[in-house]
């Protein structure tokens, strides 16, 4: 639906267009924040805490988070675990397969900066070296509540998105900071 989003900002020139644009922004952002579909993609220990977050005690689905197995239908990618160099290419490929607007939550110390393996020869020191990251979640492994807090932080970021910013993509992506190696 890129066509819709591209030309939607043209209605601002119409009388009262600004108001219409603002309300459409809030509606789009409400829809995006209340149905965050993550990609079930666990690498290491943080994946087990992610599964615990989906389980019945910390039920993630209360917030509308519904895990999807295929990158085509996912909005968010939880990078949960250590990113090893052999795994870097598949992660970049999966990130490219996800439709716009896409977000990344780097979960756990290993995904943020390499964590306890900061001096290992086989680990990428942080997933933001290969894909742009929206929310960094510290902890090793972070508690399920912390993961929910990261999703809430991501939702706050989504609410700041505007259609005028181009394609309704995230403010980060709009600034073209996505340099993929």
């Amino acid at each position: 639906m890129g066509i819709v989003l591209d030309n939607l900002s043209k209605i601002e020139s119409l009388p009262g267009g600004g108001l219409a644009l603002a309300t459409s922004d809030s509606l789009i952002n409400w829809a995006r924040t209340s149905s965050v579909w993550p990609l079930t993609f666990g690498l290491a220990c943080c994946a087990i805490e992610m599964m615990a977050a989906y389980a019945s005690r910390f039920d993630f689905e209360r917030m509308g988070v519904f895990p999807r197995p295929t990158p085509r239908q996912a909005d968010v990618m939880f990078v949960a675990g250590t990113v090893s160099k052999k795994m870097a290419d598949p992660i970049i490929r999966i990130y490219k397969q996800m439709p716009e607007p896409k977000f990344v939550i780097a979960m756990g110390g290993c995904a943020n900066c390499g964590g306890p393996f900061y001096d290992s020869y086989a680990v990428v020191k942080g997933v933001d070296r290969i894909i742009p990251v929206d929310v960094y979640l510290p902890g090793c492994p972070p508690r399920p509540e912390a993961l929910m807090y990261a999703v809430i932080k991501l939702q706050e970021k989504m609410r700041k998105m505007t259609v005028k910013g181009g394609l309704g993509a995230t403010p980060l992506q709009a600034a073209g900071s996505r340099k993929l190696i």
Partner: protein
Amino acid sequence: MTADEILAKLQASFPGLVKSEAPVKEYPTWTVPAESVRVVFERLRSKFSFDYLDVVTATDWSGPINPKGYPQSPAVAAGAAAAPSATAKDIFEVVYLVTALSTGMRLCLRCEIPRKEGASVPSLYGIFMAADWQEREVYDMFGIHFEGHPNLKRILTMETQQGYPLRKDYEHLPDKFD
């Protein structure tokens, strides 16, 4: 049938087999010459029913760690060891641990091979299938060749990995991710 009786029986046909002086604690440890590793294991398996291969691993005894092997300097000075020359020998030591499930006996065999490029040990692929991946891992980490292994290639590290990481003198060449 204690470990020593088995050792005595085997020493008749393998003169090189000798009780090693630095044993693995609580395990009868023998030193085997490199070329007769496979034959000894066949004999152990057929005659003395040592049918379960626990561990195949190796150690590089060539002195303390080279700090350049780590992309960033680790927290503790790498290899804050005793006098470096005390234990340094220019050898690879390949260690096998084998168990007899029926009698519950455990045995450790180790063999020392010189630390040059063509260092190789006969593979146990045919006798124990467990050796398949463990030997590939030892090759991946140390560069020790196992003759007779059908597909001896890297198993854990990337194809584009230069050098063998667990060697003490391994230097890490920064790639696009560092």
